[in-house]
């Protein structure tokens, strides 16, 4: 067994929350630059230029890329041969709290969905754990804003539904998101599993580089088709028209039941943030 101290995990979570909020992902930045080359309209170009300039300024001055510094989801992959010394849960919430205080990040979490009192710590965070082989611990943080989160959706399709129904549903979600979700978007799509698992897969899909395609050929094709179909909506940067409505479409999938085809779409903005570290 390899021992990892919970205090190390806490430090890693803090470091990752700060990095995610100040430094736009390189894959996203490259996609924005390539979108700028393709756009011809003045408005779309100006918006993309501002987004790129904003990313540079945020990194240099250590100011949050977006004021919505999100509700933090933490994804852990814990190796079978890892023994965590100390309180893991406290380390995760504590790491988030430290980052949001130290980094002057916005505290956007309320204690109760109806009573709505700000916890002033940006905690609790959402924790997902996978057990994997090996003696490593991978920590991924994803601080996600709610302008886009509010537009996410799930649909339980018929098991015999053709791929075109999946496409139709996703187009409907993107149209409904319109300008509100800060396009150009990144779409994380979860297919298969159960209602809850499809939603989780859609979140995990957002963590993958948008330059990496699904390993299965038919899902890879669907990712490409969806990218094309969504961009043909011409919603464009900030919904003001243009060629770039999405920067990337990532699908994660899982076996499912004979009676169903769950499809979940996590809508994410042009400031899609995540950072990871292996301990």
């Amino acid at each position, binding site marked *: 067994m390899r021992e990892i101290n919970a205090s190390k995990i806490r430090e890693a979570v803090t470091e990752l929350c700060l990095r995610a909020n100040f430094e736009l992902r390189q894959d996203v930045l490259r996609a924005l630059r390539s979108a700028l080359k393709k756009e011809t309209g003045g408005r779309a170009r100006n918006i993309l230029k*501002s987004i790129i300039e904003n990313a540079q300024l945020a990194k240099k001055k250590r100011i949050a890329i977006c*004021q919505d510094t999100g509700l933090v989801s933490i994804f852990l992959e814990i190796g079978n041969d890892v023994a965590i010394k100390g309180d893991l849960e406290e380390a995760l919430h504590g790491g988030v709290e430290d980052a949001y205080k130290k980094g002057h990040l916005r*505290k956007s979490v309320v204690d109760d969905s109806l009573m709505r009192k700000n916890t002033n710590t940006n905690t609790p965070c959402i924790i997902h754990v996978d057990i994997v082989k090996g003696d490593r611990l991978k920590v991924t943080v994803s601080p996600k804003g709610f302008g886009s989160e509010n537009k996410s959706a799930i649909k339980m399709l018929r098991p015999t539904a053709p791929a075109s129904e999946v496409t139709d549903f996703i187009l409907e979600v993107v149209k409904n998101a319109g300008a*509100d979700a800060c396009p150009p978007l990144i779409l994380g799509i979860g297919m298969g599993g159960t209602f809850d698992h499809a939603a989780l897969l859609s979140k995990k899909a957002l963590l993958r580089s948008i330059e990496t395609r699904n390993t299965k050929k038919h899902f890879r094709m669907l990712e490409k088709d969806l990218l094309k179909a969504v961009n043909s909506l011409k919603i*464009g940067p900030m*919904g003001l*028209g243009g060629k770039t409505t999405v920067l990337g479409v990532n699908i994660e999938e899982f076996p499912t039941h004979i009676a169903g085809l769950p499809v979940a779409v996590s809508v994410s903005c042009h400031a899609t943030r995540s950072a990871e570290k292996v301990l």
Partner: protein
Amino acid sequence: MINITTPLTEDVRKSLKAGDEVLLTGTILTARDAAHKRLCDTLNKGKALPLNLKDAVIYYCGPTPARPGRPIGSCGPTTSSRMDLFTPALISLGLGGMIGKGDRSDEVTKAIKKHRCVYFLATGGIGALLSTKVRSSKVILYNDLGPEAIHKLEVKDFPLLVGIDSKGNNIYGKAGRKKE
């Protein structure tokens, strides 16, 4: 590019057209979901608002805290449509303009036309860049709401687009419209 200053008088509002690029200088007030609810709860109880909205500009924004030595942190717009239920009541009190992102409801558009108000768009997700246009920031109301408190911001050349003008014309083409 059109330069405008606050207070946003009716003459200025009427001169702006959907799609115009504007640089705004002056005082704006931040208010988002919780502050809107509280303002409208006050009105619903038959009480007067604790601030004057005549010709004022409300910015749908909850900034990140300022680093030492800076007036404000990241401060981009939030989604305007969540404020739609509350907005007509505030417009009827003489509110001059609103800044946010995304489209508005038909009810808001109707109120904008009736009272010759203006809805501006700021680019979402560029809060670090927009923070360089803010000279000062001070919480003036609802301090207990934290990031959702009403902040008074002094801005210089804050870049905006006219989203819905005083005649109800809307910048979003067919693609940007949420409702089919």
